[in-house]
């Protein structure tokens, strides 16, 4: 027995088509009206919170010493936290920072503000993937400008989110080597969210708002003095070899010279800054 399809009147067919179109338009509107992205992080969160959450996202981030170059105004003195104390470094500091850790710095000898000190923090939240051997040639630049140091001395709190520009949306203008352009986040805007819009956030610099307590330089203030890998521009070999990448056992066994192994192992250790 063959069942015949019921014939539909033109009115019914038109109504059906209209209904289908309405469903499609409704689905399209629902798809377009997606809620905006909700950011779990904000630039005003306490130091270390963003980097710690970043480590939980996976990828080759834990244990990697991301080179960071910190530059202060001419004449200023940068001191890094080592074993709950500050060790002077000079106007510039080029070192590998662990991702997710918070590094406390002390800036002294500020031009025009002699006798004043600022204690900024640097938090690295992502890493670069340069060609092997070029890690310290492409550090994340963290600039401490004279204007921001004076703001911190005046009691204001400065948050600077350093991000990697997207080449496809980069500003078509030449960038000086020693001057990092920045955008001012409007009032009420999240600087981390804005940096995420413009590129890939790499590090957060926080200036002002915190001084050592009456207990002195304790673990709480120094964030535990996490290890850093200071780059020593002594030989070209030190530049070409990635010191922060531990070699596997099989590779280490193949090195013939004991002296070479010893020097290489010494280079691999994240020794405290001196």
């Amino acid at each position, binding site marked *: 027995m063959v069942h015949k399809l019921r014939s539909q009147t033109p009115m019914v067919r038109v109504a059906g088509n209209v209904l289908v179109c309405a469903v499609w338009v409704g689905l399209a509107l629902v798809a377009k009206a997606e809620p905006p992205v909700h950011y779990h992080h904000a630039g*005003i969160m306490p130091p270390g919170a963003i980097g710690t959450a970043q480590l939980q996202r996976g990828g080759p981030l834990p244990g990697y010493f991301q080179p960071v170059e910190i530059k202060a105004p001419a004449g200023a003195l940068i001191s890094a936290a080592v074993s709950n104390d500050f060790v002077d470094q000079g106007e510039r500091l080029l070192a590998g920072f662990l991702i997710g850790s918070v590094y406390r710095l002390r800036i002294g000898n500020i031009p025009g503000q002699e006798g004043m000190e600022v204690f900024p923090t640097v938090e690295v939240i992502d890493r670069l993937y340069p060609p092997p051997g070029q890690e310290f040639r492409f550090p994340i630049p963290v600039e401490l400008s004279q204007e921001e140091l004076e703001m911190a001395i005046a*009691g204001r709190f400065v948050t600077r989110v350093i991000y990697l520009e997207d080449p496809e949306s980069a500003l078509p203008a030449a960038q000086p080597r020693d001057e990092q352009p920045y*955008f001012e986040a409007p009032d009420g805007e999240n600087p981390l969210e804005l940096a995420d819009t413009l590129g890939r956030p790499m590090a957060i610099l926080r200036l002002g708002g915190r001084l050592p307590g009456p207990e002195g330089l304790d673990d709480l203030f120094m964030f535990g003095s996490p290890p850093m890998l200071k780059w020593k521009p002594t030989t070209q070999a030190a530049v070409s070899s990635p010191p922060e990448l531990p070699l596997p056992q099989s590779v280490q066994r193949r090195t013939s010279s004991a002296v070479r192994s010893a020097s290489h192992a010494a280079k691999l250790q994240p020794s405290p800054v001196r």
Partner: protein
Amino acid sequence: MSTSQRIMRAGLGHGGVLLLLAFATSCRTMQSPKPDSAPLETRQASAQVPVVNGAAIERTPAVQAEPFCNDQLPIPLGCNPPWAPPGIAGPWPHDEYLEDGGDRDVQVNLGRQGEIRGLELEDTVAIFDTADGVTVIKPSNRVCLYAPRFAAVRKVTGVAQNLQNDQPIGVQLPVRAVAEREELFATTAVQPVQPVGGIGTKQPSIERVRETPIPFISEQPIRAIESGLATYENLRILRQGVFEESEKARLMEAVDAAITWSHDQAVQVMLNEQHAIAITTDQRAQVTFSVEEPERPCLRVIKVASRKTAQPGDIVDFTIRFDNLGDQVIRHVVLMDNLTTRLEYVAGTAQSSRSADFSAEPNEGDSVVLRWDFVDPLPVGQGGLVRFHCRVR
């Protein structure tokens, strides 16, 4: 002549069963390509080819390969490029590299009036006319420079200053309302926000281009190239258009590591007045076979850069080598390079080994489109060089 007779005539019939099987497989692939198999060279079907002034347009894609990662070494030590999430093609991440060359996203094509459309930033293509009136668009390979650039977003906050007038003590007057004046720091700024650039997954290309042999080494006239060849471009494939396996490593240093210079582009053999192709790879046993090629044009475009990494302000030299690997003279050769936003062309540095009309027009990325219109037809086996300098912004 049957296929077995061809083998015996070429003196190549001693390879045994393996050779015969491989030969039969190769012949099947070339004589009757199936729709689902990767053709050696992709051409648009004649019914879908757009016609411009009576001329059809063809496209020849560039060759790409998957990145390599050694499982014996820890991430990212054993990977080239260093490390990339699964499913993302190299080089990764894209925001750390400046790319130039190839034909990304929208493919370059010609409009009804012969105008060039779809030439986006980073695209480098060569356009030429064949003897039978077909216009062919050939993209170059892609060159990648590691040149990350940083900027910052600043947020300044502070304690609001409150000024409050208290009521004087001892005044016998009705209580009045307390006046309050509040001063806040102005921290509002207006700035344009760039659109978000997304990282996309590009399909790996498994198409291979089989190119016909060059029966002789082309004599490259050096007329307009100054100061000889630099170290990065002193390769035989750039000097004479002949690919040498021993130069593969250096060539990979100069071009994108994701591009494979396969055996198809290294074919340079003649056997008994017939075009023969010798294939030697590490993926299959050595196979030699002969085949009669149909007449078809082919232009190879190679682009190399003088360095793999660059800081803002550095000068990068680009060299593009093109060769007519087909079996017919091609005319109206046009070479175009649409520079990306962060590459600034250094005026007056464009050089060409063949007579060409050069122009540099602004593009949408505040950079320029470099264009060489070559005056003379390009004979079979001949090629040329163009060279220019760019400053990394």
